[in-house]
């Protein structure tokens, strides 16, 4: 069962507090018959509301697959996924902003789909851009921004959905360490302010320890949960602190053992 220390979970603000996200024996095979490839093998996982869970694993172990199953983008081949009443939004590995829209309109798009009025959309988008520290960039086009700024717009666009479960697929993978550090702080602040439930995929061990309440290690193909590491260091943590480095070293050893076992 869950290793979560329930005391960590912040009190959710709204009345209809969602229940835990439960994955029960979730499998995913791509293709059929002999050429079928098993990407995920009976993954069971419970994420409590308000929890920040990091998924860690070697390249190709099925992390992205798992997120797209949770987001409902692909059907699972077996098992059950219960979102516990969470509304889902997802941030992809690339910012994938829409080039025909300005930054502000990219952020507004989810509200537009919900039929929110123009004035209100504008205001909310400006507030969200402020949240990701991009005040004044609303009229720019995505291509006029740097990579880190685009990722922050993508974050604002995902936040505009007012979802309470945020899936993030290596969102900061392509950024330099400095920018990533700052985005970690911002993400942690937003997570806390909004009592979000976060499922965060990465293959950077330190990033996982820096951010997660819990780090979940997936085996190489087919993806299976091999170990869970609760992270007990108090927040805010620093990615270069000895505590983070210590736990990261333990997890890295475990991961390395797994990768070399798989290579043989």
């Amino acid at each position, binding site marked *: 069962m869950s290793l979560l220390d329930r005391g960590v979970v912040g009190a959710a603000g709204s009345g209809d507090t969602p229940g835990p996200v439960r994955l029960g024996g979730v499998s995913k095979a791509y293709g059929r018959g002999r050429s079928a490839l098993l990407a995920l093998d009976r993954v069971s996982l419970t994420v409590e509301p308000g929890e920040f869970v990091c998924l860690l694993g070697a390249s190709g172990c099925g992390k992205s697959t798992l997120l797209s199953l949770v987001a409902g983008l692909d059907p699972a081949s077996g098992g059950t996924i219960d979102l516990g009443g969470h509304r889902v939004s997802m941030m992809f590995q690339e910012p994938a902003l829409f080039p025909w829209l300005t930054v502000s309109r990219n952020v507004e798009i989810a509200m537009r789909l*919900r039929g929110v009025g123009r004035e209100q959309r504008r205001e909310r988008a400006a507030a969200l851009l402020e949240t990701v520290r991009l005040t004044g960039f609303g009229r720019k086009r995505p291509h006029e921004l740097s990579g880190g700024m685009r990722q922050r717009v993508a974050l604002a666009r995902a936040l505009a959905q007012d979802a309470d479960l945020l899936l993030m697929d290596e969102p900061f993978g392509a950024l330099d360490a400095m920018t990533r550090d700052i985005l970690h702080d911002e993400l942690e602040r937003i997570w806390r302010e909004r009592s979000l439930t976060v499922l965060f995929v990465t293959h950077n061990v330190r990033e996982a320890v820096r951010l997660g309440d819990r780090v979940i290690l997936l085996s190489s193909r087919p993806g299976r949960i091999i170990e869970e590491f609760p992270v007990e260091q108090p927040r805010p943590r620093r990615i270069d602190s000895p505590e983070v480095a210590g736990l990261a070293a333990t997890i890295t050893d475990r991961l390395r053992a797994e990768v070399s076992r798989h290579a043989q």
Partner: protein
Amino acid sequence: MPSETPTTGPALADPDTARRQPGGSTADEVTGLDALELASTRADSRVADVGRAVWSTTWPKLLAIALVIAAWQVLYLSEWKPPFALPAPMTVFDDIRELVVSPDFPRAIAITAQRALTGFLLAVVIGTLIGAAVARFRPLRAAIGSLITGLQTMPSIIWFPFAILLFQISETAILFVVVIGAAPSIANGLIGGIDYVPPTWLRVGKVLGMRGLSLYRFLILPASLPSFISGLKQGWAFAWRSLMAGELLVIVAGQGSIGSLMQGAREFNNAPRLLSWIIIVLVLGILVDILFNAADNALRRRWGLQQS
């Protein structure tokens, strides 16, 4: 903000600028620097580049025109063909000057332009509807997807005899062929655009909650715009060609279009007039192409698809 760490406080304003400006101390200062940088690169390029760009694209064209005229003059002087068949460049230029002030000229341009526009707009409507339907419904694609490509590659002049049987010598016959020449390209442009919407965008759209019509309205149609515009451009080229062929073949009584005036000039062995019209049609084609390219470039600039 309980979770802000002191080390990153000032840099939060903008990590990218902060990285370039390690000494930056306040958020305002950093944003100011950023704005300055954006503004200055723009001001530099605008003023200096416009003149240079205009000249660098103009002189090769002028040179090419001069070379063609020179070659033509040489050919004329060599008496390869009798002067009544191949007139001198100056003769033709004089004729153009005479032609453009004659009352026939604006009337011919108006009639032809009106036919071209009507035909093209009709083709846009029909091509877009067919394209959207084919892209949306799988059985329809299986049924007529390759037919559209087949029609696109077919020389539309082949339809004229049939069109004349159907609609007699009339405007409708010309319109029919113009539309059938242009609509397939427009449909294919839209189909291609819809087919090649990057899958990541589609996944983003789904996560954002786009379904059915809203997926088309907010994602697929805007995403397919570049391909649609190149389809329009190609469709226009086919419409214009079909129209010229049609006007030469189908002379509607009382309608002094470019084509019918050209046929008249041929009957009178008026070679300078024929060449005048050819040059005018060429120029019209180039002007319209400039319009389409301007639209295409504006889109590319907005999307950031263009190095500038």
